[in-house]
């Protein structure tokens, strides 16, 4: 029992220190990375970057077609004129807003009506979702949208609607929705879904749902009756994640990603699924944000390694320009790779789960591990430990480094 006690104490010490020491290190030596603001100018057809440098001064410059910085820089006023779709209020104040830009008639109303922002975080999908789903009425009798009064769930291959007030199953609605799900060929279990449940929006489009086969469906409740459409798509597209959009311009129904990490936009008219030429995107690991205006989209994809921007044409989504930036390790992060052989964490910024994750394995730490193992070897010999114990503890220190060295030195018996 005593042996088990000592092993447990050392094991707990290693686990706790593997988590605690890197965390303490990150607190003592904080690192912060800020991304520049990147937009695409319809005036000079260049990406315009606004970046705060190490000297805390704002630098505004343009990029060439290959994403390289061009000579010269701009003032804020020049940037206003280059990006009228963003700084139109400034231009209006200076009476410098042109009537047409790139052959398109513009004005404050046109800018406002055509702009929206989309954002999707890995945390939004990497979490345990409730298995009941709120359903709004898309065609309310009083025109204004109301908070939902019903939820639905999948049970025994059927759709079951429950009245929230009574917590009782609504038989008629359940049957009607079950029938349409069967007619459209929806295969359970549902793989992914997206809905924007709020009455503070211009209209309701219900749910985008992905079935077990990776097929995409649009479902909503209109005047209490089900509406369901299957989106036509190539067989090669196996949908993984969906994000519904209910923007004021009414053109797009959602953003879709497939299992091969391609990104698509789903247009409302004809349920057209159109690929976006932004490279591979993994919504489970990368943050996606889209800033759309009358001229273009700027799609920003932020991952652990770096960030990249792609400007797309607003009409046909062809690529206009792209730019990427790789995050570099700070001196303290580099130093950490020589101290810690790995890092243990129980939470992550990209999900809402608690689970042990061993990350950032580093071979650089082997040098410190060897030194610590030798010190431990000498100390244990002086303490008169038996040879197998010395050998085992030295090997453990060689593997777990400082995380094992500290408990093995402190726990003397």
């Amino acid at each position, binding site marked *: 029992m*005593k042996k*088990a006690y000592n092993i447990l104490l050392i094991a707990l010490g290693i686990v*706790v220190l593997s988590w605690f020491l890197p965390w303490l290190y990150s607190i003592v030596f904080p690192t912060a990375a800020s991304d520049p603001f990147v937009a695409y100018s319809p005036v000079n057809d260049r990406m315009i970057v606004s970046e705060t440098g190490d000297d805390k001064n704002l630098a505004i410059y343009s990029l060439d077609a290959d994403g390289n910085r061009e000579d010269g820089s701009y003032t804020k006023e020049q940037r206003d004129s280059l990006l009228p779709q963003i700084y139109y209020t400034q231009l209006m104040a200076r009476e410098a807003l042109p009537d047409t830009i790139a052959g398109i008639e513009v004005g404050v109303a046109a800018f406002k009506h055509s702009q929206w922002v989309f954002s999707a975080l890995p945390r939004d999908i990497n979490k345990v979702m409730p*298995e009941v789903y709120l359903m709004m009425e898309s065609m309310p009798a009083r025109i204004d949208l109301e908070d939902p009064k019903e939820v639905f769930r999948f049970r025994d291959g059927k759709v079951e609607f429950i009245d929230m007030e009574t917590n009782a199953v609504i038989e008629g609605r359940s049957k009607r929705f079950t029938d349409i799900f069967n007619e459209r060929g929806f295969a359970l279990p549902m793989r992914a879904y997206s809905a924007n449940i709020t009455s503070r929006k211009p209209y309701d489009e219900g749910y985008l749902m992905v079935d077990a086969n990776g097929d995409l469906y649009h479902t909503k409740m209109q005047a209490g009756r089900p509406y369901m459409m299957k989106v036509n798509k190539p067989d090669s597209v196996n949908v993984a994640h969906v994000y519904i959009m209910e923007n004021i311009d009414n053109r797009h129904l959602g953003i879709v990603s497939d299992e091969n990490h391609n990104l698509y936009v789903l247009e409302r008219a004809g349920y057209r699924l159109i690929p976006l030429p932004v490279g591979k995107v993994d919504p489970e690991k990368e943050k996606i944000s889209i800033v759309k205006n009358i001229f273009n989209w700027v799609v920003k994809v932020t991952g652990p390694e770096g960030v990249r921007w792609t400007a797309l044409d607003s009409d046909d989504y062809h690529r206009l320009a792209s730019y990427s930036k790789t995050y570099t390790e700070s001196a303290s992060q580099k130093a950490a790779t020589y101290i810690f052989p790995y890092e243990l964490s129980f939470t992550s910024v990209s999900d809402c*789960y608690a689970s*042990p994750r061993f990350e950032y394995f580093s071979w650089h730490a082997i040098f410190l591990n060897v030194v610590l193992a030798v010190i431990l070897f000498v100390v244990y010999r002086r303490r008169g430990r038996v040879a197998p114990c010395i050998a085992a503890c030295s090997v453990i220190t060689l593997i777990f480094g400082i995380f094992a060295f500290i408990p093995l030195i402190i726990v003397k018996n």
Partner: protein
Amino acid sequence: MEKALIFKEWVKTRMVFFISLALAVCVALYAVLMMKRLIELKGVDHLWLIMLLKDNSFIDIIKYVPLVIGLALGVAQMAPEMAQKRLKLTLHLPYPQGKLVGLMLLTGLVELLVIFVIQALIIGIYDASVLPSELVWRVMLTTLPWYFAGFTAYLFVTSICLEGTWARRVILALLGIAVLMIFFLQPALEAYNGMMLIILITTLLLTILSFGSIARFKEGRQD
């Protein structure tokens, strides 16, 4: 002999057991009353909306209660053994030591289990009357790591109390604080679902600490 030993543990802990039970029941009833109040003021659909859209379980108030109860029961059961030097006497009873320590721990763990089950039943039964089973399970699974934190706190406290040296007590206390922090790192609902097996195994292994402390005590490692 077993009955006498269990009775001895019961005598030591009954006061704290009933206070803890009252605390657990009161906090659970308070959480239920808060939900009832919300339903009366804004309707039951408002409760559902907040649960589904804001990821609110309405039982955050009970979060640290099992932890406090685990600490209190551990101290009430084991501190008198050390403070009044009764442990030596206990260890000289004509009964196998392993079984003796096991029986002491089992008594405390069962008392905790009773308190936690009663509290969980109050919340679960009320939730089941106003919510669908999916949401009831969601709430109950969210509370599960908090209850395991209670067992873990109890097991660390017993090992600290039974330990004879202050240096080792400090090490055990620091380890205990760090391990208990893990149970409260992620506030999202059902965040610990994937870790429950690890938590269960770790909790079972932590019983070894008390046996180890007793073994060290018998070897004469005392300050």
